[in-house]
């Protein structure tokens, strides 16, 4: 055995074998686990990077929003609410009163336009939203600019309310007061 090992070719073959086996062993025992660890670390890095990017973008958005709305809390929601159907008209009328008072608007008549009707509209990302609509027609009197501001404030209420139609008319008395007929559509949860 000792003498056969001494043959140069056998020795070379042994060296090559040792090289191959040791390379394989090093790959299996040392390099392989490290490559796996490196791959896991890369994946973790990607996940962490996405998280950090997202947070930094969020912080940037929050700061920008806060600068644009200095008087408001960034975490407070400003979305419109849909009140229950039974509270729809009373809540609207109660909210309307201070607005009309603020702009010196005289309300002459309030008439419902038809019965409450259910509507389905696409919401964000196309998701259908079911709401109950009640229309009210108001006959008002006030100056042009006051009526415009009054409509703007009603449009900006925190409920789903909008001025659907507006008609103005000067009836020849008490200028600059105009007679206005406004139809408001109110939307509540069915």
């Amino acid at each position, binding site marked *: 055995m000792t003498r056969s090992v001494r043959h140069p070719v056998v020795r070379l073959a042994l060296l090559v074998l040792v090289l191959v086996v040791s390379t394989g062993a090093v790959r299996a025992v040392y390099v392989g686990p490290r490559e796996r660890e490196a791959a896991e670390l890369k994946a973790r890095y990607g996940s962490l990077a996405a998280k950090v990017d997202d947070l930094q973008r969020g912080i940037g*958005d*929050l700061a920008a929003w806060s600068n644009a709305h200095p008087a408001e809390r960034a975490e407070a929601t400003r979305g419109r609410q849909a009140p229950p159907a039974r509270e729809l008209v009373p809540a609207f009328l109660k909210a309307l009163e201070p607005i009309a008072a603020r702009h010196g608007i005289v309300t002459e008549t309030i008439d419902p336009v038809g019965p409450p009707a259910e509507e389905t*509209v696409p919401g964000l990302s196309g998701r259908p939203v079911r*709401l109950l609509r009640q229309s009210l027609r108001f006959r008002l009197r006030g100056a042009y600019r006051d009526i415009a501001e009054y409509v703007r404030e009603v449009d900006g209420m925190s409920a789903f309310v*909008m001025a659907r139609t507006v008609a103005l008319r000067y009836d020849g008395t008490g200028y600059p007061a105009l007679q206005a007929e406004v139809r408001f*559509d109110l939307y509540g949860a069915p």
Partner: protein
Amino acid sequence: MTGAPTFTRRLGALLGDTSRALIGVERGQGWARVLAPGGPPRAGASVREVVEALGLGGRSAAAMLEGSDVVVRRLTLPPMKGADLKAALALECRNLIGYPIEEAVIRHEVLGPSVQGTGIDVLVAVAPKRAISESIRALESAGLLPRRLTIRAVALRSLLRSARSLDMDEEVAYLDLGPRESHITIVRGDEIRFTRECGVGVASFIDALRSIVVPGQGVRLLDAGEAETLLLSHGVLGGGGEQPSSEIPASAVLVMLRPSLERLTRELWNSVDYVHEQFHGQTVSKIALLGETARVPGLASYLAGVLKMPVETVDSEPEGGTLAWGAVAGLSHLDPGAIDFLEPSNLGPLSRVAGAVQPRVAIAATALLLLSVSLPAEMSVQRERARVTDLERKLASVAPYADRVVRFREARSEEASSDAVMASLRGPTPPWAEVLRDLSHRVGPGARLTSVALVEPKPEDADAAAVAAAPGAVTIRIEGLVKRERLRPEAPLGGLMASLESSPYVDQVALVTCQAVAVAESRFVLEARLSGGGTP
């Protein structure tokens, strides 16, 4: 003597029929140091005893194979290679040995073109398989690992090559004086030209003095120790100096040594003559003594006087004194590819490549390769770890804002959802507040609005109904009064219509009627289509 821990490099062993020696050589940069044992091998001391005494068990050892059965010749053959050369050598060697060729192991080295230039010179060594097996067993039983088994001439050549200065043009006859026999090797530079064994050794001189004729005393019988002491004290030619107290005169010693000296001289002379003839007049320029020459004082002077050529003793130099140990020391410097009875004889190109690969180089290359395989992986892991750690640190610095960001996004999402629903509900309906504000800005001081109303399509007007039903197609009627400039309303009315046309909330402004109602005013009616372009 240095202990085993520093005795690290090479180990040479001489395993002759009548002599045994063990030599360790520690090699440094350009020098070699003999470490063991300090003096000539002790009589009867086995290699195993020396190995045990020095704690060298398990070390690799190279050995020389000597004896009457081992034949070494320089042959000139026609140019040939490989199997042809081996077959030719086998034929030649049949005539050189006294036992069947099947029981012999033949090793050779091609030295180069022959002196005549018609063939090749080959150094061939033949040894019985039995002797090789015995040598291997002897080394193994001594606790050593047999690595190389060569001949004295090759060991001497390796020793010469290891010497710091070697004149390649000088032809030297080396007399390696051993305890029982001597070896004559003639080399030119490091080319082996001739080698033979000579039966005269230190023991020959000692034996000659054991029965000495002393004038006036007759024959004196001495034991081996006394004879060696006498040899050391008198030497040859009285080289050791006459001892006043000595009872035996130097002349008597010389008379007794003369036969051995003459035999040695004759052997040397014949060898020098043979080489002179074989190599076309290239002659030996000096004789170098090595081995146990210190035990025969005056030998160099005697040989120089008789042979009429320079004779020098290769003695120990401060560091390069391995020559003094003779060819045994050369075992520690054996070249790859030198004659080796332990190496198989059929070495092809692959084997030569394999033989050229040094184990240390192979190990270093392997280690380097493994390092080159594993280092990038380790670096990659370290780099990724550092990146992840950095990112974790960054994440920790922004983590306190995470809840706020989540709440902020929820609020904005709710807003967006609400806005989307509101936009769907609004449809084509314009933002009336904006429309009214825009109209008020576009009506200049020359005009005054008296009515703004939606135009309800008449049931019989199918086209108008269809237009009104289309998304964004809401038509409004605008009525008002416009000033007349020099009894004409055209300019202010045209300006009003152009201004309305440029509004983002109305387009397709059309004049329905304009009629003078007073000297300074005309009543106008316009219709325009509300567009969603201005929807905020």
